[in-house]
C-alpha cells in the first residue's frame, strides 16, 4: 500500500512565523529573586508571593520525573527566561488600540478575533506570551454574573475567589512541573460561573508561544458553583523555532453540586521538523475536582502537536454520583513522542467514569496511553469503562498502552479494553472499488476511528480537528 500511506505527513507547519513585538523579558534563570521579580512586576499581593515561594522551595527538593515513556535531552531550567510580557502601553479602550502587528498574527492564524468572536458567538480571552491583552464579550458575561478574565486580573479584582481555589486541586507540590508552574506562572485564564448560571456561550482561549526561549507557564482556574454549567475551549498553535521550548501549564477545574464543566482542547503546537529537531515540550498538569454531588467534568482533547506531550487530564470524583469523562485523540508523526492519558479517582459513591482514547502513530513517533483508574474503599457502586485503541501507520513507530487499575471496593466495576490495528489493505481496496482514492480513504478511515471523540467536541472544533488530522497525516499514507 504504501506509497499513499507514506506521503501523508510532510506538510510544513503552517503557523510558523514570529511576530516582532517589543517584549519585556526577564533575564534567564530561576531563583527566589526571579519569583519576587515576577510577583513585583505583576503587583501581586503578599499571599500569592508566599504561594509561589512555597512551590519553589518544594520544587527544589523534587526530581524531574523519569517514568514517562519519552526521551529528550535534559532541560536546563536556568537557561529559561521566566517572564516575558509585551511592553506595557496605555490601557486599551477598544480593539482598535491593540497592536496591529499582534492582530495580524491572529489573522495569519485564521483567528481574526473580533470577527470570529462575533460569528461564532465565542468570547475569546487572548493570551499572547503570558499577558492577557484583550478580552471580548466580557460585558455580556458580566450581566449573568460570570467572571471571565486573565488570572492576573482576577488576582486584583477577585482575590478572595482566587485565594480560595488556587492550588486546591493541584497542590503546589503535586509534581515537578506543577510545582515549577506554581512558582513562576505568569498568566492564564480565570473563569467563575456563579450558582445556577448556565454560561450562554462557549468560552475559549488561544494560547500562543512567542519570543524564543521563554517557557510559558499558564495557569487556568475554572470554578462552577452549584448548578452552574460551562463549556470551555482551548486551542493552541505556536511559531516555528529550532530550540525546544518548555511549556508547563496547570489547569484546575472545580465543580460544586450539580455543576457541569466541559473542557475541550485542540493542541497543535510546533512539533519539530521531520528529523525531530525543535518543537515544544508540553508537560501539563490538568485536573478536575468533582467536589459536589451529581457534578460532571468532561475532558476532550485532540493532541496533534508538540515534540513531546506529557499530559494526563484527570478527574477526582469526590461527590456522590459525580461523573468524569475523558475523550482523547492523540496523533504523533515524524519524531513526536506522546505519553498521555487520564486518571480517574473514584472516591464518592456511585461515581461513574468513561475513558475513550484513540492513538494514531506514524513516521518514527511513539504514542503511549497511560491511565489510572482507582476505586477507593469508599467508592461503592462506582463504575468505569475504558477503551483505548491504537492505530499504527508505518513500521517505524510504536504504540503503547499502560493502564493501571487499582480497585479496593468489591461493589465497584472496572472494565478496560484496548486494541491495536492498522489500516487494512482490504479496507483501502473497498474504497478504491467505489472510486475513492487512497488518500481520501485513509482520511475517512481515520475520521471514523476518531468519531467517538470528535462527537464530543463543539462543532467548530470538530471541523477544525478533522481538517487538522488530514493535514498532519498528509503524505504519510500511500
Amino acid at each position, binding site marked *: 500500500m504504501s506509497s499513499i500511506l507514506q506521503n501523508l505527513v510532510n506538510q510544513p507547519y503552517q503557523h510558523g512565523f514570529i511576530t516582532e513585538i517589543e517584549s519585556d523579558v526577564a533575564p534567564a534563570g530561576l531563583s527566589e529573586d526571579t519569583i519576587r521579580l515576577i510577583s513585583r512586576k505583576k503587583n501581586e499581593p503578599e499571599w500569592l508571593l508566599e504561594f509561589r515561594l512555597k512551590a519553589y522551595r518544594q520544587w527544589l527538593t523534587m526530581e524531574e520525573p523519569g517514568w514517562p515513556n519519552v526521551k529528550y535531552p535534559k532541560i536546563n531550567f536556568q537557561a529559561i527566561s521566566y517572564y516575558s510580557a509585551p511592553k506595557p502601553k496605555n490601557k486599551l479602550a477598544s480593539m482598535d488600540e491593540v497592536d496591529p502587528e499582534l492582530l495580524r498574527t491572529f489573522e495569519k492564524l485564521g483567528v481574526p478575533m473580533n470577527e470570529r468572536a462575533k460569528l461564532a458567538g465565542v468570547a475569546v480571552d487572548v493570551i499572547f506570551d503570558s499577558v492577557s491583552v484583550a478580552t471580548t464579550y466580557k460585558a455580556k458575561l458580566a450581566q449573568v454574573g460570570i467572571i471571565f478574565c486573565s488570572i492576573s486580573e482576577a488576582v486584583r479584582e477577585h482575590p478572595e475567589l482566587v485565594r480560595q481555589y488556587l492550588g486546591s486541586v493541584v497542590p503546589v507540590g503535586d509534581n515537578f512541573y506543577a510545582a515549577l508552574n506554581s512558582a513562576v506562572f505568569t498568566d492564564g485564564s480565570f473563569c467563575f460561573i456563579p450558582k445556577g448560571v448556565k454560561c450562554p456561550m462557549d468560552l475559549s482561549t488561544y494560547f500562543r508561544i512567542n519570543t524564543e526561549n521563554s517557557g510559558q507557564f499558564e495557569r487556568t482556574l475554572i470554578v462552577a458553583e452549584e448548578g452552574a454549567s460551562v463549556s470551555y475551549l482551548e486551542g493552541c498553535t505556536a511559531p516555528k523555532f529550532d530550540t525546544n521550548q518548555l511549556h508547563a501549564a496547570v489547569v484546575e477545574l472545580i465543580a460544586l453540586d450539580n455543576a457541569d464543566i466541559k473542557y475541550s482542547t485542540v493542541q497543535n503546537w510546533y512539533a519539530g521538523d521531520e528529523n525531530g529537531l525543535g518543537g515544544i515540550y508540553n508537560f501539563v498538569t490538568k485536573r478536575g475536582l468533582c467536589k459536589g454531588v451529581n457534578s460532571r467534568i468532561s475532558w476532550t482533547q485532540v493532541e496533534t502537536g508538540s515534540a513531546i506531550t506529557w499530559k494526563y487530564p484527570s478527574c477526582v470524583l469526590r461527590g456522590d454520583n459525580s461523573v468524569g469523562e475523558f475523550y482523547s485523540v492523540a496523533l504523533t508523526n515524524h519524531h513526536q513522542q506522546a505519553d498521555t492519558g487520564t486518571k480517574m479517582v473514584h472516591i464518592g459513591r456511585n461515581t461513574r467514569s468513561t475513558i475513550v482514547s484513540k492513538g494514531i502513530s506514524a513516521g518514527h513517533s511513539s504514542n503511549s496511553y497511560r491511565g489510572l483508574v482507582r*476505586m477507593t474503599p469508599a467508592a461503592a457502586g462506582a463504575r468505569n469503562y475504558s477503551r483505548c485503541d491504537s492505530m499504527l501507520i508505518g513500521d517505524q513507530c510504536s504504540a503503547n498502552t499502560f493502564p493501571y487499575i487499582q*480497585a479496593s471496593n468489591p461493589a465497584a466495576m472496572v472494565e478496560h479494553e484496548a486494541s491495536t490495528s492498522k489500516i487494512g489493505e482490504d479496507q483501502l481496496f473497498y474504497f478504491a472499488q467505489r472510486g475513492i482514492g487512497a488518500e481520501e480513504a485513509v482520511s475517512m478511515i481515520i475520521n471514523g476511528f476518531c468519531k467517538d471523540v470528535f462527537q464530543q467536541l463543539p462543532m467548530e472544533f470538530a471541523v477544525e480537528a478533522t481538517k487538522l488530522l488530514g493535514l498532519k497525516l498528509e503524505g504519510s499514507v500511500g
Partner: protein
Amino acid sequence: MTGTEAGSYLDSLIRVQAQPPAAHSSPAWLKQLRARALERVGALTVPTTRDEDWRFTDLSPLTRLSWHPVQGAPQLASADLERLSLPEAAARLVFVDGRYAAQHSFNHSGLTVANLPAGMAEHGASVEAHLGRHARFEQDAFTAVNTAFLHDGALIVVARDAVLEAPVQVLCISTQKETASYPRCLVIAQPGSRLTIIEEFAALHQGACFTNAVTEMALADNARVNHVRVQRDSEAAFHIGNCAVSLAHASRYHAVGIAFGARLSRYNLNVLLAEEGAECAIDGLALIGGRQLADSHTLIDHAKPHGLSRQLHKCIVDGSAHSVFNGKIMVRPGAQRTDSSQSSRNLLLSGKARVDTKPQLEIFADDVKCAHGATVGQLDAEEVFYLRSRGLSDAAARMLLTYAFGAEVIGRIGVASLRRRLERAVQAQTSRAA
C-alpha cells in the same frame, strides 16, 4: 558487599547457604556461571516499591527475616508423598528444602529426567548451552542468588520427536521452617518433541520459609510443552519464582499457573517468541484471602513475525488480600502479523481486598492484531439471584459462582488427577470464605 541495608540482605542469604557439597566436581563453565552470578549479587539490591516493577509488592517484611541452614538429609513421610503424587506421572523428581531426594524420585519415561549433576554427564553440552542463558541474572537479584547456589535441580531433556503423553512431575517441598530453598529446573525440548511438566511447590509446615525458584525452558522447532505450575506454599512463606521460556520456530508453549499459598508470592514469567510462527497460551489463577499478596508479572515478547499469544489471568481476592497483575505484551520491530490477546479478570470478594492490574501493550510493528481487556468487579447480582430462584442459599450460590470463576482456568489443565485435586482445593477455600 554494598553499603545499603537491602544489599547486605542478599549477602546474608549467601552466607547462610551451605556451599554445594560436590562443588569441586562441577565443570569449569558452571563454576564460572556461579561466580558471575555471585558477582551480580554483590552489585544488585533487593528491589523496593520505588522500582516500577515492584510498586505494589513490598519486600521489606522479607528483608526483616533471616534464615537458618537446612539440617539433616532430605526425607519425606510416605503419607505426605502419597498426598502430593500424581498417578498419571511417568517420572517424578522430588526436592526437599531445595535438595534432591533420590529415594522419592523415579523415571519410567524413557527420557532424561534427572537431577542436574547426574544429567549433566550425558547432556553436558546442551545443558551448558541453556542453563543460565534464558533466565538472565544480570538485572534480577533473585535469579542471581539462585544461580549463585546452583547445584541440585531438575533436568528434563526430551529427545528429538519423542512424544510423552504422561506428565513429568517436579515436586519442591519445604519441610523445615525458617529455611530458604532455591529450586532450579531446566527443560530442553528438542525438535518435534512433546512434554507435559507439572511443577508443584508445597510446604509441610505452617511456618515462614523462603522459596526462590528459577525455571528455564528451551523449545526447539516444532516442540510442544505444557507447563503447569502450582504454588501452595505455607501461609507464612515468601515465594519468588522466575520462569524464562524461549520458543523456536513453530513451537508451542501452554502454561497454567496456579497460586494459592504464601504470604507473599511473586511469579515472573517471561516468554520469548524468538523465531517465526511460535505460539503460546498463558493462563493464571490466583486464589487468595487473609493477608496474602499474590503478584504475577508476565512478559510475552514477540520478537519475530507470525507469532500468536493468548493469555487469561484470573484473581479471586478475599479478606484483606491483595493481588497484583502486570501483563506486558511486547511486539518488536519487524514482528509483523503478530496476533495477541490478553485478558485480566478479577473478582473482589471483600471490602478490604485490593486488586492492582495493569495489562500493557508495547507495539513497534504496524501489521499486528493486539487486544487486551481487564475487568474488576464482584459477583453478578443477577447470577446470584438466578441460582437463588432455584432454591440455593445465598452462600451456596456465591460459592458456586466463585468456584466456576476459578474453574475456567483449572479446566485448562490436561492432567485429570491434578485438576480434581485443585478443584477440591478451590471448593474448600471458597466454602470457607462463604
